C-alpha cells in the first residue's frame, strides 16, 4: 500500500511540470479571457472598467457582429454540407483502382498543405476581374465578353470564400473518408452482388451506413475549424465588401488586435466557445444514437 502511494506521488511529481505549463498556457488565458469579457477594456483609451454583461448584450446589437454571425452560419453550413457530399464522392473516386491512383491521392492533398493565408492572397488575385484566373478561364472557354468582379458583391464574395475553403480542405476530408471506405470488406459487396444488388443499392445500403459514423466524427473537427477560421478571409477579402465576409473569428481578431477593444473581443470569444461546446455535445449525442 505504502509502495503504491509513493509510486503515485512520484508520478504526480513528474507530471506537475507539464500540468503547470498547461495551466499557464491554457487555463490562465481562458480564465483571463472570461474575466476580461466582463470589463470594458479599450487599450487605446486607457479604459479598464467593470461593465457586467454589457459586452455580451452589445454583441447581439452590434450590426457588425450580427453580419458576422450570419455569414459564419452560412459559411459553416454550406461548407460542411458540400464537404460531406463532395468529400464522399471524391473518396469514392479515389477508391476506384486505376493507373496513377497513388499519384492522384498524393497530389490531391497539395491545397490542404498550403497555408490558408497564401491561398487567400492568391484567391484575391484569382477572382480579380482584370487579371484573375477564374474570369480568364470563363472568357477563354465560355463567354469571351464575361466581366464580373467577384469580390465586390455580397453574395459572390461569400460564394468565392466558400469555394476557396472547399478547394483547400475538401481533399483532406476526402482522404479521411477514404480511409473509412478501405475498412469495408470486399466480401460484403461480393455477397450483395451475388444477391442481385445494383451499384446504387450497394452504395446506399452498404457504403453509406458503414461510413456514416466516420463522416459524423469527421464533421466535429471540420466544423470547429470552420467556426474558428479567420485567415482565409483575412488575406482574401479583409472581411469585405463592407463587413459581408467577416467571419466571427475574423471579427474577434480585429476587435482584439486592431481596435484593441480587448473586453469586447473576449466576450465574443467566450460566446464562440459556448457555441462550440454546444455543437460538440449535440454531435456526440448524435453519434451515440447512431451507435445504438
Amino acid at each position, binding site marked *: 500500500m505504502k509502495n503504491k502511494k509513493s509510486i503515485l506521488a512520484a508520478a504526480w511529481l513528474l507530471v506537475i511540470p507539464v500540468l503547470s505549463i498547461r495551466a499557464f498556457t491554457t487555463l490562465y488565458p481562458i480564465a483571463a479571457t472570461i474575466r476580461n469579457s466582463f470589463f470594458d477594456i479599450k487599450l487605446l483609451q486607457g479604459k479598464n472598467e467593470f461593465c457586467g454583461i454589457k459586452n455580451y448584450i452589445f454583441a447581439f446589437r452590434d450590426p457588425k457582429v450580427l453580419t458576422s454571425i450570419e455569414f459564419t452560419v452560412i459559411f459553416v453550413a454550406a461548407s460542411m454540407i458540400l464537404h460531406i457530399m463532395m468529400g464522399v464522392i471524391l473518396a469514392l473516386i479515389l477508391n476506384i483502382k486505376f493507373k496513377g491512383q497513388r499519384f492522384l491521392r498524393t497530389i490531391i492533398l497539395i491545397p490542404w498543405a498550403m497555408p490558408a493565408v497564401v491561398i487567400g492572397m492568391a484567391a484575391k488575385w484569382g477572382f480579380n476581374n482584370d487579371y484573375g484566373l477564374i474570369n480568364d478561364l470563363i472568357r477563354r472557354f465560355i463567354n469571351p465578353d464575361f466581366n464580373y468582379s467577384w469580390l*465586390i458583391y455580397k453574395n459572390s464574395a461569400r460564394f468565392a470564400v466558400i469555394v476557396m475553403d472547399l478547394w483547400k480542405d475538401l481533399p483532406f476530408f476526402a482522404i479521411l473518408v477514404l480511409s473509412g471506405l478501405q475498412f469495408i470488406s470486399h466480401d460484403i459487396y461480393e455477397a450483395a452482388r451475388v444477391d442481385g444488388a445494383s451499384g446504387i443499392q450497394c452504395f446506399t445500403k452498404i457504403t453509406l451506413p458503414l461510413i456514416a459514423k466516420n463522416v459524423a466524427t469527421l464533421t466535429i473537427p471540420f466544423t470547429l475549424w470552420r467556426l474558428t477560421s479567420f485567415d482565409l478571409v483575412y488575406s482574401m477579402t479583409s472581411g469585405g465588401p463592407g463587413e459581408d465576409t467577416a467571419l466571427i473569428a475574423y471579427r474577434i481578431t480585429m476587435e482584439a488586435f486592431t481596435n484593441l477593444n480587448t473586453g469586447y473581443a473576449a466576450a465574443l470569444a467566450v460566446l464562440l466557445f459556448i457555441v462550440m461546446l454546444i455543437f460538440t455535445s449535440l454531435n456526440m449525442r448524435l453519434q451515440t444514437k447512431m451507435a445504438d
Partner: protein
Amino acid sequence: MKKKLIGLVLSGAMGASLLAGCGASSGGAAAGTGAAGAAEEAEAALSQGDEEYDLTLYSIQTTDPEFDQWLADVEAGTGLNINVIAAPTDSDTRQQKITTMLSTGDSSVDIIEINDEMSTTFKNSGWLVGLNDTVMTEDIRDKFAQGYVKQMITSNDGDIIGVPSYAGYLAFWVNQEILDEVGIESINTKEDFMKYMEAVSDGSRYGYGGSWEKTYVFNEIAQFVNMFGGDYYDWTNPANKEAMEFMHDLVKNGYTPLDQLADKYEQMNPKANDGKYGCWFMWGLGTDYANAGMLGEDKIHQAMVPCLSEDGQRYIFTDSWSYVLNAASEHQDAAVKFLQFAAGKDGMEAGYKYFDRYPARADVAEEVVPDTDPTKEMYSQYASECNVMGRPMLPQTMEFISAMGTIFQSYVRDEITVDDFLKQAQGYVEQYQ
C-alpha cells in the same frame, strides 16, 4: 461517455486556443500571442551569429533592394550595430503586430517605423517616448512641415513622438498618353475633369481609377471632401454631400469602375500601368510605374491637383512614416542616437538616395534633391499652390477608417442613400471623436 468526454475536451482545447488570443492583460504586462511571436522573431534575429547589437529596428523597408546599403550608411553614420526585423508587408498584419508589441510593453524592439494611422492612434497612449528635448529640438523641428508635425506626431501634452522619415503627398497622377490621345492639355477645373472623364471612359478604360477597398478608400473620400471644400469631421456640411454624390456619379456614369471596391494599391497600380485609368491619386514617387517602365513626362507622371471647389482652392494631403522610440526600449541612448541621425541631413539623404524617399526637411530637400528630379518641381508647386493638410484621423483610427469605408462601399453599391451615408458618417465621427 468516454468518447463524449474526449470530444468535449478536444473542442474545449480548440476554443481555448482562440480564447488565449484575447487573454492579454490590459495592464500591458502580459504578452499576447502576437507579442510572443514578435519577441521570438526578435530573439531569433538577435541570436544570429551571437552578434551583439546596440539596438533593434523594426523596418518596413527591408524588401527594398538597396536596404543593405542604407543600413551600412546608417551604421557608419551612427557607429551603432543595428539589428533589423522586417515588418510584415501586409498593412493589417503590420499594424496588428506593432500594436501588440507596444501595448504589451515588448522591449525586444527599440525603433519602429509607423505611419500616420498608427501615430494618431499611439501618440497619446504613453507607449512612445517624447523626443522634444533629445531629437526634435526647436532648431530641428522647425525644419519639418509644421502643420504635419503638430497634427500628426504631437501628443495632447505637446510631446513630439516621431521623426518623419520623408515627405509625401497624395499626388494626382495622369497618363500623358491618354491625355494626348483625347486632346486635353491639363486638368485644372471641374469642367476639365469632367471633359476628361467623358473622353476617356469607354467601358474598358476609365477616366478615374482608385483603390476603394474599405480601409484604403478613406484617402480618396477625404481627398474629394477637401477638393469640394468640405470638412471630414462635419457630415452636415453640404460640400461633403456634393463630394460623395460626385464620387457616386463617377461610378454611375461609368467614369470609374465599381471593381475597384476590392482593390488596394497593389491591384490599382498594375491597372494604371496598363493604361486602364486616365488619372488617379497615389502616394510616393511612382516606384511601381518606374519598375514597369511607365514613369515619365510622356507616360505616367504627377500633375497639379484639380480645383473642384467654388472657392478656387486646391487641396492636397501630405503623409509620412515616422521613426518612433518604444517606451519599453532598454536601449534608449542608442535609439536616440539613431533618431538624431535620421532627423539630420545625412539620414534624410540616405533615405532619398536608397529608397527614393523625398526628404521631410525642406532645407535638406533643397540641398540634396537635384533640380533635374521632376518631383522637386512638382512638390514645390504642391507646397506653394495647394492647401497642404494632414489626413483627418481620430484616436481609434483603424476602427473609424474601416467603418467609413464600409458605409461608403454600401453607398456606391446603392445599398444606402446619400442621406443614410451622411447620417451614419456623422454618427461615426461623434462615436470615435
